[in-house]
């Protein structure tokens, strides 16, 4: 596959690895922000190759992992609503979201009790579903970072354009930069440089990181997802750290421009405004999310369906996902990892998602499954 395969060349990867080892005079601690990067680092063995040279702390960039239980439970109630009322609601979302455990199982578990749930690839597919099923009420559970917000904003605009009154969003969009700043402000922070999330920056650009770099004096390198992209990002961080520099650098220039994608930003700005948001594992993050602007509120499922959230919120006591998401522990440090908690029977979101750190360790670093540690 063009623009993928060439960035997986093992000989080139070895050269970059060696460059990183030669450049690093001490063990530096970096955080890869995006869960897609975490999976790339584990899948391609980069994390283990650099053991002793670079410590990688896995960042919070797994949107379904930080979606609060309140929202998942609300979605659960929406999917069951047709059994209790005249609202014939079908809850739609990305596959990962539907598998995340809520207080009373995942949304897919709920199907067995009669919940109406559908996996879609794109929020635009959910709009088509609404168009084809005028008697049903289609709700799209809109999770994701700035990368995903243009798609859900576009879905709302298309639904409005087509005059659909049976399409709504349950909005749980999050913004990555306030979370990065919150991590830097923590007294326990150990992050010395960030690999910024390549596709978030594709949409948003990286001008806004300049203030962070100046304030906290640490390198931020915009980084992609393939092995050579990840290694190039790590090398750029190490070179800056060794030289005592703190700059914003772009190591994913085939996708990312300084100002980002202006059309995408315009669509997002038209539909959403910045607001405070509760993050699972973090608590309330000021300006940490997006919400529908007033003129689009008729598309807001939260406003439309007056559910009271009467059932209690139940977070697993054994699950340490909050510590994993904030980079305080590694998945293997959790007692439940691989025992009570597996991808087939997960206690927390990071074990489910294709971007969750626990799922990455289970697949690629679990001694019982894949004995590469030996």
């Amino acid at each position: 596959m063009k623009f993928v395969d060439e960035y997986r060349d093992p000989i080139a990867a070895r050269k970059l690895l060696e460059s990183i080892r030669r450049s690093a005079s001490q063990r530096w601690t970096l955080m890869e922000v995006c869960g897609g990067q975490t999976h790339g680092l584990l899948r391609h063995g980069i994390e283990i190759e650099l053991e002793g040279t670079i410590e990688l702390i896995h960042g919070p960039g797994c949107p379904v992992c930080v979606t609060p239980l309140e929202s998942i439970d609300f979605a659960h109630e929406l999917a069951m609503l047709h059994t209790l009322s005249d609202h014939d609601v079908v809850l739609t979302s990305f596959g990962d979201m539907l598998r995340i455990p809520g207080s009373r199982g995942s949304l897919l578990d709920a199907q067995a009790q009669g919940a109406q749930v559908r996996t879609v690839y794109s929020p635009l597919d959910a709009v088509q579903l609404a168009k084809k099923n005028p008697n049903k009420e289609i709700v799209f559970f809109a999770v994701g970072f700035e990368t995903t917000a243009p798609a859900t904003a576009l879905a709302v605009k298309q639904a409005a354009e087509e005059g659909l009154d049976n399409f709504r969003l349950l909005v749980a969009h999050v913004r990555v930069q306030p979370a990065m700043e919150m991590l830097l402000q923590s007294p326990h922070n150990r992050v010395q440089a960030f690999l910024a999330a390549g596709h978030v920056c594709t949409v948003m650009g990286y001008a806004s990181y300049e203030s962070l770099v100046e304030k906290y004096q640490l390198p931020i390198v915009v980084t992609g997802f393939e092995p050579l992209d990840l290694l190039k990002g790590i090398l750029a961080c190490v070179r800056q750290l060794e030289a005592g520099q703190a700059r914003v650098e772009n190591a994913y220039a085939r996708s990312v421009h300084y100002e980002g994608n202006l059309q995408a930003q315009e669509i997002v700005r038209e539909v959403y405004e910045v607001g405070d948001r509760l993050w699972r594992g973090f608590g309330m993050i000021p300006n940490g999310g997006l919400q529908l602007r007033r003129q689009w509120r008729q598309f807001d499922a939260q406003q439309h369906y007056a559910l009271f959230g009467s059932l209690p919120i139940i977070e697993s006591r054994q699950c340490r996902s909050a510590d994993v998401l904030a980079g305080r522990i590694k998945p293997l440090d959790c007692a439940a990892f691989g025992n009570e908690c597996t991808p087939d029977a997960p206690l927390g979101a990071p074990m489910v998602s294709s971007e969750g750190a626990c799922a990455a360790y289970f697949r690629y670093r679990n001694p019982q499954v894949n004995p590469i540690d030996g």
Partner: protein
Amino acid sequence: MCLGIPGQVVKFTDASKPYAQAEVEFDGVRRVCSMACVPDAVVGDYVIVHAGIAITRVDPEEANRVFDELAAINEDAGWKDGQL
């Protein structure tokens, strides 16, 4: 979630802005994607698609830069290929 896959624009199924759509091919598989956020893209371009919408055009010149940098590493006087 932020997974983005590069694919080649094969043909426009709806060229009318702002909701243009095109067929994009990923390793032999084709899917109709929204082109609303890449108004300058033309047939033959590679775009990165996330959740059914193209979020950027791949810049072919920038795409080669990493390989130029690797070549520069080769020319580094202190480099011994035998150690790799």
